[in-house]
């Protein structure tokens, strides 16, 4: 067995037993990258070989997380040459744990998209089937983990950008509770929704990585001051008596039949393990998508204003006055989808439309939070599909933004409510593409999700049974 096939906790055991060194790990991964990257195209900046200290573990980083002296492009022409002079807080935290940046991974431009097709640089392929998308926006991160090109990775999730690609690529992806992980150094898409989170081969690695990145940061005013939790302690099979709700709205229209069956199968497994599973209602769900796109685009339109061609980033050569400098730099520097969302966001914040859109969306947001709170009075976790379908074909939806937005159907309400949720592989469809189950927890209760996820993982043995085939 090659080292690149192991999980991080397996690698750590080998390191501790001094069977291997950190150099062995990076060499194994570099070899794998050389082999698979031409097919998968997950990296924007490939890792370089370097002499490391003997215990460090490499990690792939989504290219919207600032890394000092390493290009951070957000997969945009706008930041094609941008090299941050500082590290995101998560990078500093990882480095303290001996986890070192190992390449920067592809994504939809500024994290806007669900297929990684909106990258300015390249289209990443799904390792299970190279004609399919890896999902997005953290498609590079999920594909790289699935293809064993990195042992684990960080992604970011604004409306499903960790969970949906994790689902498409058959890996584990966790969006932590809003405020659990510092956003300092994450290039903002929608500030009130963005969270950084782990994409890993299994649930144990997910807990280890969450341990490393979680915690209060004085540089991020929205980060929460809470007692430190050891998430690896949550890893435990015993879920006897756990109460699980399945919101029926996420098993209805628009959800693929095979996906639905896979989720119902998960429910059966949980019952078998001693959990109480029942259907429940989340009636506000149907308004989530609209609410999400209004809030996310509004914040994005403001957040992306700083890319103006003045201080850094792309500047058009074609201008004769200030207005043209702005207009042409932004027109040429941003891709279609980013421009679409900036225009949408600008519109919903404009005077005369603010009340009808942005303000109303904020009201719905409060309702979404309340409905979830209500459900969590009754249930420990909620179970839904992560995405309505399995991975779709490259080019299939890239020209139909509305279709693409529907891929976020099951994930956006969690960001709106600020809750934690994990996608965990739970089977494959008839095309041998992975299906993801989404486990949603109470705010700051990642432990219960990890526990339920681990139990399911032990029951299904997905990793042992299925491997990406790099089908052409």
């Amino acid at each position, binding site marked *: 067995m090659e080292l690149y096939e192991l999980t991080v906790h397996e690698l750590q055991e080998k390191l501790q037993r001094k069977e291997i060194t950190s150099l062995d790990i990076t060499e194994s991964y570099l070899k794998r990258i050389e082999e698979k990257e031409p097919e998968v195209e997950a990296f924007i900046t490939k890792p370089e070989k370097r002499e490391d200290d003997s215990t460090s573990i490499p990690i792939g980083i989504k290219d919207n997380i600032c890394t000092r002296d390493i290009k951070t492009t957000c997969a945009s022409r706008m930041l094609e040459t941008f090299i941050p002079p*500082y590290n995101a807080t998560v990078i500093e935290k990882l480095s303290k744990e001996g986890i070192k940046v190992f390449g920067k991974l592809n994504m939809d431009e500024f994290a806007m998209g669900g297929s990684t097709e909106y990258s300015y640089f390249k289209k990443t392929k799904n390792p299970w089937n190279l004609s399919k998308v890896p999902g997005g926006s953290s498609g590079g991160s999920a594909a790289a983990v699935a293809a064993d090109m990195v042992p684990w990775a960080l992604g970011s999730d604004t409306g499903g950008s960790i969970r949906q690609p994790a689902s498409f690529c058959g890996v584990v992806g966790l969006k932590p509770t809003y405020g659990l992980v510092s956003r300092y150094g994450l290039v903002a898409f*929608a500030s009130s929704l963005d969270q950084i989170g782990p994409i890993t081969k299994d649930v144990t690695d997910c807990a280890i990585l969450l341990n490393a990145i979680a915690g209060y940061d004085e540089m*991020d*005013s929205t980060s929460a001051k809470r007692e430190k939790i050891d998430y690896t302690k949550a890893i435990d099979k015993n879920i006897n008596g756990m109460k699980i709700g399945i919101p029926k709205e996420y098993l209805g229209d628009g959800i693929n039949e095979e996906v639905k069956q896979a989720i119902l199968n998960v429910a059966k497994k949980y019952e078998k393990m001693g959990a109480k599973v029942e259907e429940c209602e989340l009636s506000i769900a149907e308004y989530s998508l609209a609410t999400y796109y209004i809030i996310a685009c*509004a*914040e994005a339109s403001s957040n992306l204003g*700083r890319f103006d061609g003045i201080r850094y980033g792309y500047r058009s050569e074609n201008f004769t006055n200030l207005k043209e400098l702005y207009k042409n730099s932004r027109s040429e520097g941003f891709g279609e989808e980013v421009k679409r969302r900036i225009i949408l966001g600008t519109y919903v*914040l404009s005077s005369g439309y603010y009340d009808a859109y942005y303000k109303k969306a904020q009201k719905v947001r409060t309702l979404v939070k309340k409905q979830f709170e209500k459900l969590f009075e009754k249930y420990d976790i909620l179970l839904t599909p992560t995405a309505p379908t399995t991975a779709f074909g490259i080019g299939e939806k890239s020209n139909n933004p509305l279709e693409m937005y529907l891929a976020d159907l099951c994930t956006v309400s969690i960001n709106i409510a600020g809750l934690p949720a994990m996608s965990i592989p739970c089977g494959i469809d008839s095309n041998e593409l992975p299906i993801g189950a989404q486990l949603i927890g109470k705010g700051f209760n990642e432990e219960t999700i990890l526990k339920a996820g681990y139990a399911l993982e032990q029951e299904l043995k997905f990793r042992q049974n299925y491997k990406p085939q790099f089908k052409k």
Partner: protein
Amino acid sequence: MSDYEVVIGLEVHAELSTKTKIFCSCPTEFGGEPNTHCCPVCMALPGALPVLNEKVVEYAIKAGLAMNCKIARKSKNDRKNYFYPDLPKSYQISQFDMPLCNKGEVKIETENGTKTVGITRIHIEEDAGKLNHDEFGGGSLVDLNRAGVPLIEIVSEPDMRSAEEAEIYLRKIKSILEYIEVSDCKMQEGSLRADVNVSIRKKGETKYGTRTEMKNMNSFRSIVRAIEYEAKRQINILERGEKVEQETLRWDDVSGKTFSMRDKEDAQDYRYFPEPDLALIELSDEYIETVRKTLPEMPESRKARYIKDFGLPEYDANILTSSKYLSDFFEEAEKICKNAKAASNWLMSDIMGILNEKEMEESEIPFKAEQLGELIKLIDKGTISTAIAKKVLIEMFEKPQSPNEIIQQKGWIQISDEGAIKEVVKKVLEANPQSIIDYKAGKDRALGFLVGQAMKETKGKANPQMLNKMFLEELV
């Protein structure tokens, strides 16, 4: 013309004198090489986030309390979106609908007595950077040292009815901010500036006319001139039967005119929305009380004390307390010389006179208050005469020396030796027999003439009281 009245409201921007910026730990210090007081946050690098400086909230609350505002227990930051090269994030973090302070008032002294000007609100926000025109390249260079320096914006009600009232109000705001030490209010450095709103209406009318706004005014003189010009311009428009356009104007000091700043179709929509990177500002009653306790003695109270304890006339007390600098200066001088009346007189006449002549600000007085105290002490002890003291004062403005050093160096110590003075008196009497005759004939002025002659003889150094006394003795 007199059928109309002008209605003025001011939005005063004051930079707060916190050590660090509002959302990062860069220094707020004025000047410095361009772009040296900057970090990822105030340069708006991708991924950087703001963290609110608590001192800014404290200073703004101080200002609010000093202006009798209600302090909001909950307030929020908002983004004001617009593109300009001096605004690195392309939005300014400000406060829109939930400002920190609401509904206050200040009292101003006008020709027609005391008047109350309402304060609509005070909110916190960040300053923008600066554009420097590049003399060589023909372009503009951005300096972000000022970006993120904390500001408060003090919005008045449209309560002022003349340019003079607007000036008095602004001076009052400046004085309050200086008293509570939250801003250095240096107008020439732009740390205090005002947007001036002007409208016109017929006297007796209760509705306001359409207003125009003149932005970023930073001298009292231009504000007064601009208001007077703008009022006339608007009256002329109304007299012609036309309508005043609501617009933003630029005051040009050289031509003495206002100009339209923007195209009408280019009306700004700032797309305000709550700043998602910052939490609500929530304040407890206890905290606000703690801040209230740090407020220093305010001008009204000082004024009352000067009248009561020092016996100063109200007029003098008013002027002395008009600025904290002047008031502190006076109190320190008084501590040394224990002669409040003299300290007040010296400040109000001689020192102010020299300042006016040299076009200097009070804060630019080149010597310390203690030195004024010493000067007065020297007079009171009889070491120098008042006439000499005036010459010493001029010297004190020239170079930094103590009054003692100056009189030693110049040899201006008063002659108080009885023998020496007697000799001078005799000499003068001998030389002016006619004056003796005049005096004895009842012409009191002759005595003054003789004293003057003796002063001339001693180059002003003779003790005038002793001279007077001895002449009288001799003449009897």
